[in-house]
């Protein structure tokens, strides 16, 4: 009878082996997936007892802090209120986490370093969150929010340091106050507000027709391929047929044959539409992709809270590659034809030109600092792509200086500082009087330290009149 007993033990070994395998499956193989399951509230519950780190602006201003109540549970509050609602988001036990609060959750709850946590546990220490210092500038952010709200119904502004990709301003109007959203009824009401959409971060989630600001992309492609120079002569008369349909210039003005530099300064649609047609869809696609179009931004922000900038013609009313048969390349080249770009994307266009053609990855986090003040992690400058040759960047900069000096963007001038920029005005479906206006630009032109994109929706007027002064004020503050 001993042989079957031995075999029974072998069977028991197998069964216990299976138990060990299934335990390993959940604790190791699938652990990460289960930990991040949205129905799993374990992390949030544990995080309630951990002092979540501070979030600060670039000057040290506290944007988010946690305070402990009598029961030992921490509560989040936002001293700057609505100022940084969109870029920073919120973190509440009941309704979850969004935006930078979500993206940097591991750092803020001190889960970044597994080894120290285990050692700390053995020593009986409690986990503590690290502080996150952002690149955001409170004064410039305030200017952006206030001036957009004055100028129009809604809008957004993004300001970047073109050398590093640091996001100095990310403003979206209408705003919301994260301290109010804590109440789930207020959150539901904000979610239902279809006319104002206060929870939508327009800097990242809304694609606006970029209008003439996109001519910077077209100019870059034209010059960088060597097919054109700023002096190339193109026929700028009104009503040139583009894809078989006549295209109008602003005020129906005819320009005759003019060079590219003048055409950008005066924002001549027919010139750039023809340039785009001559370059072709494939070339346009290549340069658009280098600038970051057609894919999500590489920002340290939850991917599902960001939109890619795409071309979505009608038909087929959804995003298609720029080489699609539906795309009217001429109209796309002047920022129409279904092109939808986020303010961040257009700020990156300006930043790429400003930084000699080298586009840096945008980032909101400057560094992560632990409780003892030691820097745990620094987010430095990282190259996203090389968009153009330095010579092309210099040529396009020269053209953009002309826009501000003598063209449509004179209201962006800063006394004593050379500004380069481009205006944009896109008619909306609400009629030709209501426009989405734009300004993108950078300064100082000879040694750029700040690149900016401003868009205001629902304006009766032009980008040069409404968006350019806002961009100027933001840049002036940031250059101070």
């Amino acid at each position, binding site marked *: 009878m001993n042989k*079957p*007993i031995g075999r029974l033990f072998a069977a*028991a070994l197998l069964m216990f082996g299976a*138990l060990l395998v299934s335990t390993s499956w959940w604790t190791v193989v699938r652990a990460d997936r*289960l930990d991040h399951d949205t*129905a799993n509230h374990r992390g949030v519950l544990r995080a309630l007892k951990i002092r979540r780190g501070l979030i600060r602006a670039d000057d040290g201003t506290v944007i988010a802090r946690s305070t402990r109540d009598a029961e030992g549970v921490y509560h989040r509050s936002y001293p700057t209120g609505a100022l940084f609602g969109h870029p920073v988001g919120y973190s509440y036990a009941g309704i979850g986490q969004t935006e930078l609060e979500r993206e940097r959750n591991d750092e803020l709850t001190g889960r970044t370093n597994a080894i120290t946590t285990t050692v700390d546990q053995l020593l009986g220490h409690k986990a503590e969150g690290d502080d996150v210092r952002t690149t955001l500038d409170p004064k410039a952010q305030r200017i952006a929010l206030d001036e957009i709200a004055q100028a129009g119904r809604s809008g957004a502004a993004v300001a970047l340091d073109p050398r590093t990709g640091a996001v100095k301003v990310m403003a979206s109007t209408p705003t919301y106050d994260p301290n109010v959203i804590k109440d789930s009824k207020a959150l539901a009401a904000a979610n239902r507000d279809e006319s104002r959409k206060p929870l939508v971060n327009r800097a990242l989630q809304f694609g606006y027709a970029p209008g003439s600001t996109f001519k910077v992309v077209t100019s870059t492609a034209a010059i960088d391929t060597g097919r054109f120079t700023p002096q190339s002569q193109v026929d700028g008369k009104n009503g040139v047929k583009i894809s078989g349909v006549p295209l109008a210039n602003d005020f129906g003005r005819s320009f005759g044959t003019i060079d590219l530099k003048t055409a950008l300064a005066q924002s001549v649609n027919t010139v750039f539409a023809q340039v785009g047609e001559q370059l072709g869809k494939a070339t346009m696609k290549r340069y658009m992709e280098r600038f970051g179009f057609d894919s999500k931004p590489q920002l340290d922000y939850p991917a599902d809270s960001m939109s890619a900038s795409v071309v979505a013609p009608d038909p087929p009313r959804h995003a298609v590659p720029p080489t699609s048969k539906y795309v009217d390349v001429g109209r796309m080249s002047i920022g129409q034809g279904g092109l939808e770009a986020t303010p961040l994307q257009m700020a990156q266009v300006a930043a790429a030109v400003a930084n000699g053609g080298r586009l840096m990855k945008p980032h909101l986090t400057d560094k992560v600092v632990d409780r003892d003040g030691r820097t745990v992690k620094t987010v430095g400058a990282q190259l996203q792509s090389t968009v153009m040759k330095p010579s092309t960047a210099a040529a396009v900069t020269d053209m953009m200086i002309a826009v501000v000096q003598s063209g449509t963007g004179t209201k962006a001038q800063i006394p004593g500082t050379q500004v380069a920029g481009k205006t944009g005005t896109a008619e909306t479906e609400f009629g030709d009087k209501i426009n989405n206006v734009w300004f993108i630009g950078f300064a100082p032109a000879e040694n750029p330290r700040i690149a900016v994109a401003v868009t205001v929706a629902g304006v009766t007027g032009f980008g040069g009149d409404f968006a350019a002064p806002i961009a100027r004020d933001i840049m002036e503050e940031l250059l101070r």
Partner: protein
Amino acid sequence: MSARNRELFALIPAALLVSAGFAAVFLSRDDLLGGLSGTNRVSNVSLTYGAIFLGLCVAAHLVLRVTLRHADPYLFPLCALLASFGLVEIYRIDDGLARLQAQWFVIGLILFAGTIILLRDYRRLERYRYLIAIGGIALLLLPRAFPPVNGAYLSIRIGSLSVQPAEFAKIAMVIFLASYLRDTRQLLVTAGRRVVGVTIPPLKHFGPLLVIWGTSMLLLFYIRDIGSSVMFFGAFLAMIYVATDRLSFVVVGVGIFALGGYLVAGHIGHIADRVDAWRHPFDPKLLQRASGGSYQLAQGLWAQADGGVLGQGFGQAVLRISGNPECVSTVDCSLLPAPHTDFIYAVIVNELGLAGAAGLLGVYLLVVQRGFKIAMLARDSFSKLLATGLTSVFAIQVFVIVGGVTKLIPLTGVTLPFVSYGGSSVLANFVLLALLLLVSDRARRPDTGAGA
């Protein structure tokens, strides 16, 4: 070193585990107090717990030293280790429960000593096999007279006590089968006709086996207790396999059990629910269902994922939904339902990680190994079958609950032997342990000894 001295020394790790475990739980609770007073309290109380536990184990050891000099020296310390593991974890969940559990341990140890002293010649049990079998079935049917708990007739409440008769019935069933199969094993193998290579035993001998199968089905259908049903039938198959050395019995047995289970399960809602929950534990619809859903299983899996490789540490895991003032005891408002009984394995993995789980499973495997070793050393068929049956039922119980909690098999509620909270479970397992040690003592006794 003599067997009994080895046993005595092997108890030290269990006592250390209790001290260290209580210290860890205290530390995690009193971290806010700090200071000297806090530290003193930790060391004093945890050492006291460790000392009391060691004292009780030493007392049981002395009984073994006097009565069963030759018994396996490792079995008792291994079970003490499991018990201390459970006690610390239960204390961490709810200190009131831990006090009750400690009382159950005292009663369990008395029952353990009583079993050993009264059943010195355990082979007397054979004489009462039918009485034991009927008693076992009666125990199983008893809960039917009481209202069901979670859709199953598992336990009966007497005052504040909840008793699960199935825990004792499993032992009765093993004793009966060991005795019965001892008599009929030869007949089962030789007396039958061979049909397509399978020996069909005469109906006369086959009958009682059908009764066992019927009992298992009855358990499933009438008591609605899949866990006990699987345990019973699994132990039965293990014993008949050892008795006959014929795999065909096992194959046919598994077949008819599966068939019966399939037919019966279709008619019992809560079994179909369990299978649904097992297949799709993270399905939002099943997760949110008030009863019969997968909430418990999903929470258990999340708890394990939360533990990872090394765990959150003793006393560190998230157990309670905080901020609810209505919660007095942790058990009432636990994030994970039944953390102290069925799901204690998930809590252990949560706190001690895969490493702790591997250690725990390792201890169980060592117990099983000792059990089968005793079966091999035993000199007569009844002893061999008894040890095999007891060990199998123990191993299957661990497999059923740990497999259920880790989603290896559909979840059925049985206790984790010696670790889970529960009086019946503690008492029954101490009886099981006593029987194994009795068999072991006889098996290892030198030939020159008297025997009986």
